[in-house]
């Protein structure tokens, strides 16, 4: 197993490296002269030339890339021309917020999706299954930014129970939760639907497997059959799926933060696109890509731990 993971880690590293090149090239490809954007002025050529020298924009592109990368390694991701602040600092401030949002959403998704998925599988074909499956499909189909607007409409504007937007740090947990619960829910619903469907499908497959039939033939109770034999096998699938959905979660966070005006990484992405804040955009995209690659690697590790066929070197096939 050690070799397998080492190879996977190596592949991840290569992917990450290529990703950095793509990010750099991509941002360079954005329309507009970066010097102009950095200066926030358009005319004075001397100023522009000074900016170019200062930011190394007159050097060949691969050199710029190298410079950027070496700076990034040391934690220096540049300075935002809009705020004048260090990009790393902005990221450090905003990352925990997005993290809180995604963790809450993930928690919600698992807490809602897993039990309902199991229930639907065990009671396959019943009314409960039908309702649950339809609800899940609905949750998948609904554009969650629309849901966000509706929630704001309902809970904030009409009922006044929850604040419509904004963020309060965890120092005030009650207010923090009040601000986060709608966005977390909106973000988590799509994932909950996916989790529920995957759980149901994996459980159905497990429940229909020969070894479950054997367990029943041994006189095991329903609880043991479902909870131990079928469930353990299904969990493996679900963990993998959840891992794969992390990208979707980050994507969703972008829009959710935009609607609920939460100062996280997602909103930063959009803001920096529109304000032509290239250093920030570069850093954010790189950060999300890195996070995703690392998350995938972790999921692979978890999968190989859970599946004895990989963990214990097999004898005969």
């Amino acid at each position, binding site marked *: 197993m050690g070799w397998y993971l080492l190879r996977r880690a190596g592949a991840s590293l290569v992917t990450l490296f290529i990703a950095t090149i793509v990010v750099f090239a991509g941002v360079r490809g954005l329309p507009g002269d970066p010097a102009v954007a950095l200066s926030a002025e358009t005319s004075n050529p001397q100023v522009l030339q000074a900016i170019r020298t200062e930011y190394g924009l007159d050097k060949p592109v691969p050199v710029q890339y190298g410079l950027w990368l070496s700076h990034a390694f040391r934690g220096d991701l540049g300075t935002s021309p809009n705020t004048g602040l260090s990009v790393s600092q902005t990221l450090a401030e905003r990352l925990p917020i997005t993290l809180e949002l995604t963790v809450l959403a993930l928690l919600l998704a698992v807490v809602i999706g897993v039990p309902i998925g199991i229930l639907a599988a065990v009671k*396959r*074909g019943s009314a409960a299954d039908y309702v649950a499956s339809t609800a899940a499909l609905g949750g998948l189909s609904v554009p969650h930014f629309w849901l966000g607007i509706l929630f704001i409409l309902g809970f904030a504007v009409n009922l006044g129970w929850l604040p419509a937007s904004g963020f309060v740090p965890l120092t005030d947990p009650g207010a923090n939760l009040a601000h986060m619960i709608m966005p977390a829910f909106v973000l988590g619903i799509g994932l909950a639907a996916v989790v529920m469907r995957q759980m149901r499908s994996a459980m159905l497959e497990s429940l229909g*497997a*020969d*070894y479950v*039939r*054997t*367990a*029943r*033939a*041994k*006189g*095991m*109770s*329903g609880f*043991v059959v479902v909870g131990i*034999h079928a469930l*353990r*096998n299904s969990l493996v699938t679900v963990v993998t799926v959840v891992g794969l959905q992390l990208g979707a979660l980050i994507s969703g966070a972008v829009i959710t933060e935009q609607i609920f005006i939460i100062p996280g990484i997602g909103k930063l992405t959009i803001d920096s696109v529109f304000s032509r804040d290239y250093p920030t955009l570069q850093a954010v995209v790189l950060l999300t890509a890195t996070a995703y690659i690392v998350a995938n690697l972790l999921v692979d590790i978890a999968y190989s731990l859970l*599946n*004895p*066929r990989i963990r*214990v070197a*097999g*004898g*005969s*096939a």
Partner: protein
Amino acid sequence: MTARLEVEDLHVRFDTDEGTVLAVNGVSFSVEPGEVLSLVGESGCGKSMTALAVLGLLPPTASRSGRIRLEGEDITRLDEKALRRIRGRDVSMVFQEPMTSLNPIFTVGYQIGEVLRRHEGLSRSQARARAVELLDLVRIPAAKQRVREYPHQMSGGMRQRVMIAMAVACNPKVLLADEPTTALDVTIQAQVLDIMRDLQHELGTSVVIVTHDLGVVAEVADKVVVMYAGHVVEAGAVDDLFANPQHPYTLGLLGSVPRPDLVLADTQNRLVEIPGMVPTLRQPPSACVFAPRCSRADDPCLVRMPELVETASGQYAACVHPGPERARQPEVIRS
């Protein structure tokens, strides 16, 4: 004396995407204590379904009717909870595919121990010790180490022996075996059958073995029930069946088996093929189900499905023209 297991007028029906399928139609048989009964037939004749029906392990799309009596007690009337007490303890089952029938994520020892902990209330360590004993019993070498292994680390023959160990762990009254050797190599088949037979002698278990392989039947069975399209077409003691087959289908099965140990009356030792395939019944038959493939079929056969009647001493057949037909089939002389 009450038979150990009695199946009376068993019917099993399925709902599929293409309509209803009548898998088992009015099957009846009985097994005495210590006796080995074999359910024989080609794929799709309903024999596996019969075995699953006994334990109530049919898929949810199936419905079952008829009586099944275990030592006189009707187990079709039992609720799920009572049925679970019987499964694994009084009646157990060995399945065809040992690779998929064992849970890949639990050790062999755990899976054997599970039955013991459930039915005999053993503790984990007691169950583990007993599992090692059972692995010894089914002649798995280095049982103490093997008990901690996972199914994918074992060969097919060994896995099947693990299944047998699991099945006999609580000393059941009846052991159902659904094609236990079909997925195994021929050499391993003989080993597994040996183990099954020895265990059966030692423990006095009644065995119902489902198979399509007449060689297996000849090896282990005392009594044979031949099935076709969900019906019993012939039943009798194994020696009688081989020497004096009553139903043309049985004749066909025997004629299509290469038997180097049998000397045939005519000098051409030809394998005889039965043309056609086993039909899937969607409604009750209005003629003999075997008629389309039968060389003896004529008008009386097309009136209705014949009843199972005694056509020779101790032998039963569902045929209007029973008996070995000298003109068509080569006479079989046992060597």
